[in-house]
């Protein structure tokens, strides 16, 4: 099992500056500290919609890489999006899921079927171009470059230790400024 921040640090180090990153809740708050950027899209609204926002962005901007930092609890609410994404087959989409088996933002309660569900298996069965899972940080670090260059949609499940949620600034997340900054950064 890995620590989420360690995975995010490796990712932040290897992502190009022009990559759009769609991130959910607790992961979003950790991510924006590691890679502050107006291209961070953390205003998904409903907790299950990150993958769907990312699909729209990837289709609308086929020359720009779009990375999703999803949560297992979030993705469980939008499992059909795996099929939708595979059906649309955006080559520029990479879908990471932090699997810690809990709803970290909502009290740390276990997700249904925690430890039983095979998220990489779901993505593979849905038709993603590739799907993998990582439990060891070295494996993830050594594989990341290939993942980022592969033709998408790419899926990677990251086995993460549950932990206390980060400090969460919902006022910032829900405010208009970051959406305006995102629009401006795309121009």
């Amino acid at each position, binding site marked *: 099992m890995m620590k989420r921040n360690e995975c995010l640090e490796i990712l932040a180090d290897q992502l190009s500056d022009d990559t759009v990153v769609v991130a959910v809740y607790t992961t979003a708050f950790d991510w924006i500290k590691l890679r502050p950027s107006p291209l961070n899209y953390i205003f998904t609204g409903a907790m299950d919609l990150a993958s769907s926002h990312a699909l*729209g962005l990837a289709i609308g901007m086929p020359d720009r890489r779009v990375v999703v930092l999803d949560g297992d609890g979030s993705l469980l609410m939008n499992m059909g999006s795996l099929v*939708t994404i595979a*059906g649309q087959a955006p080559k520029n989409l990479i879908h990471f899921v932090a699997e810690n088996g809990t709803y970290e933002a909502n009290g740390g309660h276990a997700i249904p079927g925690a430890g039983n569900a095979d998220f990489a298996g779901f993505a593979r069965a849905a038709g993603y171009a590739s799907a993998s899972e990582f439990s060891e940080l070295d494996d993830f670090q050594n594989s990341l470059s290939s993942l980022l260059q592969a033709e998408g949609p790419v899926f990677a499940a990251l086995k993460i230790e549950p932990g206390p949620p980060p400090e969460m600034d919902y006022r910032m997340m829900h405010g208009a400024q970051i959406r305006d900054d995102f629009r401006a950064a795309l121009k």
Partner: protein
Amino acid sequence: MSDARPTSDPVRGASIIAAVKSAGVGTVITVPDITTSDGLLRPISNDANLRHINVCKEDECIGISAGLSFAGERALILIQNTGFLDSINAIRAVGVEYEIPICLMVGLLGKQAGEAPSEARNYGVRIVEPILDAMGIPRALIETEEDVALIAPAIEAAYKTSRPTALLIGQSPEAE
């Protein structure tokens, strides 16, 4: 006072599609709806000038449309009233509170000819307009060829103000 609508001059699917395109919509995101299946979804899915994204569940449409809007593209969501009801939280968060232009075209399954939606015998139809009104989402009922003139301005207004809008399809548009 009843707001009963005439059932003459039924709307044609081709007219709706032309109006949608005239408003700059390049993508239609769908879950099949009985009311609009033949008159709209079938020709849309065969239209080489429209990108068609079919999704598993209606709330996906909201996220995808939002992503497209940030990418500078206009989209229309074509779903059934039951799917609209299933998507309310996503519409609330993304469309209303985040002020993102979400354009909904909603077939009113079970609405009878001549009924006003708010007086429909079908419960799932009867509650659609009050819900839209409670959410502050502008709406227009499209049933006749004359109503088609409402479509493009509604979509333009949605993108100009960056707010959602809803176009309710009360009768099955005529298929070509």
